């Protein structure tokens, strides 16, 4: 895909996020929107997957360790054709398969159930280790939050992944700088994130996570890195694409009301139109 196509797709993913969270009257738009480019790049460019065969044996795997940003994952999966986009409005509704946090048992394309922060990376490490053990070529991707890495289990997982030289593993840290109680620095600074992963024997790349050129370069670099897992520290803008949600801590876990939904969708339509003019 060209960058323009990816940008258009990311914008559609953002519409899906806002639509799902609005319909649910609950959910986490901020960290879903910040990672829209990351979800888009993974599912439309980077990963070897088949929407017609979500359980394909040697597929690449993705674990959304920051599971509360399920709307971002679901919108990308729907956009990619794993399930109908119309179903996004059932997100968090009683009886829907689109659970508040990723549920691998019921959602096509979800490789691991997640949501309790800190646990997903360990599962991704297990998947990467299984791939190495079976001498398979598949790669494993885990998306963590910059607040999430305050959890100790992340570093248990990182230590073992580094020690086992799992170069088929890529950890992406969505560094939007905000968590529920404030900026990550105010709450408990995870910085320097790159130096921490380096100390755990990772190759690290610092990028603007909302830029497809930089995402492309980083994932290519990860692919070429042998003997070490890679951590991509992706600086992003929380709430990106929706004017009133951008860099606003209040929109971590809150749904837009009907009025706000209209404004949000108008913002995204405007972006879409501008992209069509390119």
């Amino acid at each position, binding site marked *: 895909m060209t960058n323009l196509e990816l940008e258009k797709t990311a914008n559609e993913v953002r519409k899906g996020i806002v639509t799902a969270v609005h319909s649910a009257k609950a959910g986490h738009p901020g960290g879903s929107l910040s990672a829209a480019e990351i979800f888009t790049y993974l599912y439309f460019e980077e990963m070897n997957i088949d929407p017609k065969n979500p359980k394909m044996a040697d597929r690449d795997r993705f674990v959304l360790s920051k599971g509360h940003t399920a709307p971002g994952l679901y919108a990308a999966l729907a956009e990619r054709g794993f399930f109908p986009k119309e179903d996004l409005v059932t997100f968090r509704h009683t009886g829907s398969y689109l659970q508040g946090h990723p549920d691998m048992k019921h959602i096509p394309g979800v490789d*691991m159930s997640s949501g*309790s922060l800190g646990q997903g*990376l360990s599962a*991704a*490490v297990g998947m990467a280790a299984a791939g190495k053990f079976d001498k398979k070529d598949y790669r494993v991707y885990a998306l963590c939050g910059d607040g999430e890495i305050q959890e100790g*289990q992340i570093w*248990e997982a990182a230590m073992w992944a580094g020690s086992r030289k799992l170069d088929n593993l890529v950890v992406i840290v969505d560094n939007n700088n905000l968590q529920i109680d404030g900026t990550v620095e105010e709450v408990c600074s995870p910085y320097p994130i790159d130096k921490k992963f380096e100390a755990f024997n990772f190759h690290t790349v610092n990028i603007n996570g909302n830029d497809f050129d930089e995402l492309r370069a980083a994932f290519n670099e990860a692919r070429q890195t042998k003997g070490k897992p890679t951590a991509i520290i992706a600086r992003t803008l929380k709430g990106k694409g929706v004017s009133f949600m951008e860099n606003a801590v209040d929109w971590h876990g809150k749904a837009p009301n009907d009025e706000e939904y209209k404004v949000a969708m108008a913002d995204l339509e405007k972006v879409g139109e501008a992209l069509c003019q390119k």
Partner: protein
Amino acid sequence: MSEINPTKIGMKIATRESYGNALVEVGKEHEDLIVLDADLAGATKTGIFKKAFPERHWDIGIAEANMTGIAAGLAACGKVPFISSFAMFAAGRNFEQVRNSVGYPHLNVKIGATHAGISVGEDGATHQCLEDIALMRTIPGMVVINPADDVEARAAVRAAYDHVGPVYLRFGRLAVPVFNDEATYRFELGKGIVLKEGSDVTIFATGLCVNETLEAEKLLEKDGIQAEIINIHTIKPIDRELVVKSAVKTGKVVTVEEHSVIGGLGSAVCDVLCEEAPTKVLKIGINDVFGESGPALELLHKYELDAEGIYRKVKAFVK
């Protein structure tokens, strides 16, 4: 069952050792079986498996939560991981990892928890897990097995492998006598085993308390008390039919376990009986206190979980 080293009745073997040996037996037949340990391979006896299959024994280091998540990832890729640590860490520290990364997605992870109960001995309260059965049996879809001797423990490991879904296996540190006959023993998941029929009282026991109860029964018999002894190796799913049938028959029920009286076998039996056949129940276990340091046998005696203690309590209850 091991054909090379048949276990003889009366031999003393710790069920943690049975675990290590059974992993080798089952691992020989199934290449997807991978054993994870958290720097306790010598104590959990997975070192036996490591010797036989070093490439399938992964030491995760002292990081039980991570070990559990790694196992979830392995299971999601078709492996059958057995994670191994002391019960305190495998079930206690790990409760939420087991619940959310293994239980909720119903992944095929087996938890081999050794050093359960007060018979850990000298290490004392911090390492004597008396709450693991309670924790594990609240997780939907989790199977909880507490084998009583070497023969049963090895059969349980095989049954755990054959069962698709999460299984918690509880093993002990202390060498305990073998009382099951390997030649005739059959392990059936979820089925209790009537070891002796009786009419005055039913004693449901689990783990190393089964043999102690069999010894207590001999003393009860001298006093003219006919106790029905039932070994409940699978605490979840519990054998509801057998629990009800025997309780209705004798009208008096005792449960015996090396676990807190809150949430373990006693509670599981009461859960069944209060709904289906209300019966007076005496729960013998650890009475809502922490353990302490001491030789295992002395602690079992002090906390009245040996034959003498069980005998005394049952006798008083029946009268």
